[in-house]
Structures are given as structure tokens and as C-alpha cells.
């Protein structure tokens, strides 16, 4: 019987010819990521396992992203302890302040994720790695410590669900809109729990790596185990200058078995918004036109990439952010920052009145740069909007795409970029 791409990857990395959903396997791990606020605990736990060295110093990836640059003494001290422990273990790939980015962006952008392999990280959005044709999985510090010691992790092989995406993307409609649309369609009620989500079809074939990363990133918020796009020419072009490791094309068999198959035509998909409080309460933008807000935020592992900055710069060029809106933009990595600078996007956006901050997770986790206060209404291109997510429990967060945030920030109210005069 045929296998899905996720099943193939699980089989291949556990030394089996085939696996079936429900089977429990220990697989090889291509890379394991941990970051500043949990990393020391990972290394402490690793040490307690009785192995003198990590399984591969090149494949334990350490990133400073949640706490940098430190906004207070507590974080500064935590960062110092983190640096000490990374140095102690002589880790090759340490992306500390100055070379940093959001860990998931770093993992893909710096070539630490390889098609056909499995990478894990101690942060929930590790699902992002599926964009590169890998199984990317979020795990806790215990699994990370075990993987650091053994190069392995346990998995129950998930059932796969296929999303066949067809049609032609409308102007200014982004992968984020598809993510939010699927969120509204599937809800959090358990249907996609533990499932492997496979995105395929003509509208995925034409989607950039940035878009694929957004799509796979938010599969964790659907409760899924992983999200994956099979590697193709776009993947190959993206990875060409990022890794020297050998990899091969891998895809689902034609007779692979799926728990469910969903067909979505993006020709009908417009900008989509998640209402404050619940990610799966989504609405088409038409229902929210004119909704006022006072803070705009674009960044995060979901939408802080070069493509997102390009879209915003195109919409905002020569215009001014509305006087009642504070707009904060945070590139997902130093590399993205530099590329956006060179392309002139940052200049355009700063001229328009947006504030640009150092690459980090920023306000997304509510512990850093640009947190929300009482009464704030935030229009965000991040990934979560639960009460209190960005700081105050008395703030509201609408989630949407960078193009909607850009057009809306000019008007000072939710605006459809398709009808905006650009």
C-alpha cells in the first residue's frame, strides 16, 4: 500500500520500509533546535542523562529569539546563563544577538532543515519546517534533551489529511488568509488533532517558500502534528545556497491513504480575519471594513519574512500611517532585515511612519517589544490572538495578513487591500 510523504519520512528515518498510522517509532533527528528561555533547561536535562557530549555539535541549533535584546535585568541574566551553557557544549550553530532571528526562520533560512528528514524544536511553531519538505515537530525540553543525547525522538505515526488547493490567488491575498480560512473551516474541536496536514495542488505549486512557511507554521494552531509541502523546484532553488547536505525529492504515493481530503479553491478566497479571543472565529474582511484599531504589528515566525515586507512596502509607498495608529514591524531575522534594507523596503516603511525593531519574537508572546496595554485594539499579522497573548487581558487582537495590516494602517481602520488605492 502507498504511503504519504509524512509516513515515508517516518519510515525512512526509523530504518523501516514502511509504517502505518498509529505505529510508534523512534526516528533519527536531523536537527534539534532550542532557544534562549528554555535552552538552559534543555542542556541541564541533557547533562542528567549521562552522555558527555551532544549527539552532533553541528545539529543542535541554538537561537536567541524570545528574550533579545533583553528588556529587563531578569532576561539579561537568563541570556547570560544561556550563553554560558551553549559555550560549554561547544555548539557550532549559535545564533545569538547580532546574528539572531526567530528560531523557526533561522532553521529554514540557514539550511538546518532538509527535505525528507525530521527536525524538532522546543517551540510550538516548529511545524514551520514542513515548508522545506521535512517533518517539523514541536516538542518539550524533555524530548529535546533526549534528542541531544541520542539523536532520536519517539513519534506515533499520524494519519494524514490532504488539503488540495486549486485556483488562482487574488491580488493581495496571502498564504495567511488560507491559514485563517482553514482555521475557521476546521475549528479547534479536535478534528485535526495529531494529524499530518499535507498541502498540495496548483495553488501550492505556485506558492513561494515564505508562503509555504506561513501555511505550515500555523498547522500547530489547528492542533495538527505537522504540516508539509512536498519538495519541488521552489524548494530546490531556495535550499541551493543554504545547505551542502544531499537530499532527494520525496512525495506521497498516488495510492497513499488519507483520513480526509479537502478541496479549496483560492480563486474564491479573500482577505480573512480572526476575531479577538479565538483563532477559529474567522470572518471575511467584508464584515469588518471600518473597524478601528490603534496598534499594528507585523513580524513573527508567521509573517516576518522578506515577502511580507515587500508587500507592505508596495502598499505603503508614498503614504503615511494614520495618526491614530502605532505601527511596529519586526523582521524575522537579521538576514531578512538586511535584505529588506537593501531592497529599500525598510526605507519606504520608515518614511511611511512605521517603527522597525530588532529581529525577535517581539510582542507576539507578550513578553517583549511593543506589548499591548489596556484598551489597545491590535491589528496583527502574528499567529495567536487569545486574551492576553500580547500583554494586557484588556486588549483585543485581530489577526490578519501583512497586506491587510498595511492598507488598514494607512486608513486607521480595517481596509481591504483589493480596493485600496495603491
Amino acid at each position: 500500500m502507498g504511503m504519504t510523504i509524512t509516513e515515508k519520512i517516518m519510515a525512512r528515518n526509523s530504518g523501516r520500509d514502511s509504517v502505518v498510522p498509529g505505529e510508534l517509532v523512534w526516528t533519527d533527528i536531523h536537527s534539534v533546535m532550542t532557544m534562549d528561555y528554555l535552552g538552559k533547561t534543555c542542556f541541564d536535562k541533557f547533562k542528567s542523562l549521562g552522555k558527555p557530549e551532544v549527539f552532533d555539535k553541528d545539529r543542535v541549533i541554538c537561537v536567541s529569539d524570545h528574550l533579545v535584546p533583553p528588556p529587563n535585568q531578569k532576561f539579561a541574566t537568563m541570556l547570560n546563563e544561556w550563553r554560558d551553557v551553549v559555550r560549554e557544549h561547544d555548539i557550532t550553530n549559535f545564533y545569538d544577538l547580532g546574528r539572531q532571528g526567530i528560531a523557526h526562520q533561522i532553521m529554514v533560512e540557514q539550511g538546518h532543515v532538509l527535505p525528507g528528514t525530521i527536525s524538532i524544536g522546543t517551540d510550538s511553531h516548529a511545524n514551520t519546517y514542513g515548508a522545506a519538505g521535512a517533518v517539523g515537530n514541536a516538542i518539550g525540553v524533555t524530548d529535546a534533551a533526549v534528542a541531544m543525547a541520542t539523536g532520536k525522538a519517539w513519534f506515533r505515526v499520524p494519519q494524514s489529511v490532504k488539503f488540495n488547493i486549486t485556483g488562482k490567488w487574488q491580488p493581495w491575498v496571502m498564504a495567511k488568509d488560507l491559514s485563517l480560512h482553514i482555521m475557521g473551516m476546521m475549528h479547534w474541536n479536535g478534528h485535526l488533532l495529531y494529524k499530518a496536514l499535507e498541502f498540495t495542488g496548483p495553488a501550492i505549486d505556485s506558492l513561494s517558500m515564505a508562503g509555504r512557511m506561513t501555511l505550515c507554521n500555523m498547522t500547530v494552531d489547528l492542533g495538527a502534528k505537522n504540516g508539509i509541502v512536498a519538495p519541488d523546484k521552489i524548494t530546490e532553488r531556495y535550499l541551493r545556497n543554504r545547505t551542502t547536505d544531499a537530499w532527494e525529492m520525496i512525495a506521497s504515493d498516488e495510492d497513499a491513504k488519507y483520513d480526509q481530503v479537502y478541496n479549496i479553491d483560492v480563486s474564491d478566497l479573500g482577505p480573512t480575519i480572526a476575531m479577538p479571543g479565538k483563532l477559529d472565529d474567522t470572518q471575511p474582511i467584508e464584515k469588518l471594513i471600518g473597524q478601528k484599531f490603534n496598534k499594528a504589528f507585523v513580524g513573527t515566525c508567521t509573517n516576518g519574512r522578506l515577502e511580507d515586507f515587500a508587500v507592505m512596502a508596495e502598499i505603503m509607498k508614498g503614504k503615511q500611517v494614520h495618526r491614530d495608529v502605532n505601527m511596529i514591524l519586526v523582521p524575522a531575522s537579521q538576514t531578512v532585515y538586511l535584505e529588506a534594507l537593501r531592497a529599500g523596503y525598510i526605507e519606504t516603511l520608515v518614511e511611511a511612519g512605521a517603527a522597525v525593531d530588532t529581529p525577535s519574537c517581539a510582542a507576539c508572546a507578550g513578553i517583549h517589544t511593543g506589548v499591548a496595554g489596556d484598551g489597545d485594539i491590535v491589528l496583527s499579522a502574528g499567529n495567536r490572538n487569545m486574551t492576553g497573548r500580547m500583554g494586557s487581558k484588556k486588549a483585543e487582537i485581530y489577526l490578519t495578513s501583512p497586506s491587510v495590516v498595511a492598507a488598514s494602517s494607512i486608513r486607521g481602520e480595517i481596509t481591504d487591500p483589493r480596493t485600496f488605492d495603491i
Partner: protein
Amino acid sequence: MMRGTCWVADDYVMAYDIIIQEYWTSAIDPEDNSKWVMAGVKEEFNKENGFKENGHTFIVAAHNFAGGGKSIEHVITGLMGAGIQAVFATSFARLQFRNAINYGLPFVTCDNIDKGCETGDELEYNPETGLIKNITKGTEFQSVPAAPFVAEVGEAGGLMNYVRNKIAKGETIE
């Protein structure tokens, strides 16, 4: 056999509310994490030992318990530190389901359990058969028994011990 009272949750108990934001960067420590566990779930729990002082042994919940996509293990250690010995729900979010297995805290999937219990009911759970008895109401529920690997990790006292034992014996993990 485990026995004690239960606290019954609503739908959508999120990991976020089990451990609220200001404690995400705390050390992972059952005693410490348990002081503020569930602080975001109900106003009455939003004080030091607010949940713990009720002395419940079990949590009963509906769909997607500990969802919302947070991978931090404080959620599990906080519940364990508060004396929780098992959580029964119709479904669990995968990140915390995995963490629970790794810590040997039974996260037990059981249909309809949420409709058959009230806070304060006395329950009895047999991990070997998966049978959950509601002593107060005189009813029974058959849950999904733990998979062999999960039971093995539980018996070892969690994944760390399981792997540590293997490494000490020079055994490979497969």
C-alpha cells in the same frame, strides 16, 4: 488504582490558562509551578495555590484539553505539583499530550466523561484496565488504555528516566 475527587473543566481549557504568561519563563519545578497552575482558567484560581488548595486528584475535561499550542512543560509539572494524578478528557492537544506521556502523568482519552461528572465527585481509576468509576454517582466509563510504550515510560517514572536507564545499560533506543 487511583482514587480522589475531580475538578470538571469547560471546553477549551488552554495551556495558556493553565500556566499564564508571566510564568512561562519560570524554572520547570513541580512545587513552584503548582502555586499558580490554572490561574487563567477561573478567577478563583488566580491566587497563590488557588487551584492546588482544593486538593483534587483528577481533572475531567471535554475537547482539546491544554490546547492553544504551547509546548512548555510547566503545564504538566504544575498539574503534577498540585496533586493531579490523571486527566480525563474527550480529546487532548498534542503538545501537552506528548509532554504528559514524557512525565508519566496519565492523560486519558474517554468519551462522554465530561458529561458524567461534576466537580467534587469521587472517582476511581484503574490504569491497567482503563476503567473510570464515578463513586459518587455510581456510574462507569471505559477509557482508552495506555499504549505499551506509554505504560513503559510511565513505569520508569517518565522519559528522562527511561532513556537514562537505557544509556546506563548501553542499550540502543529503537
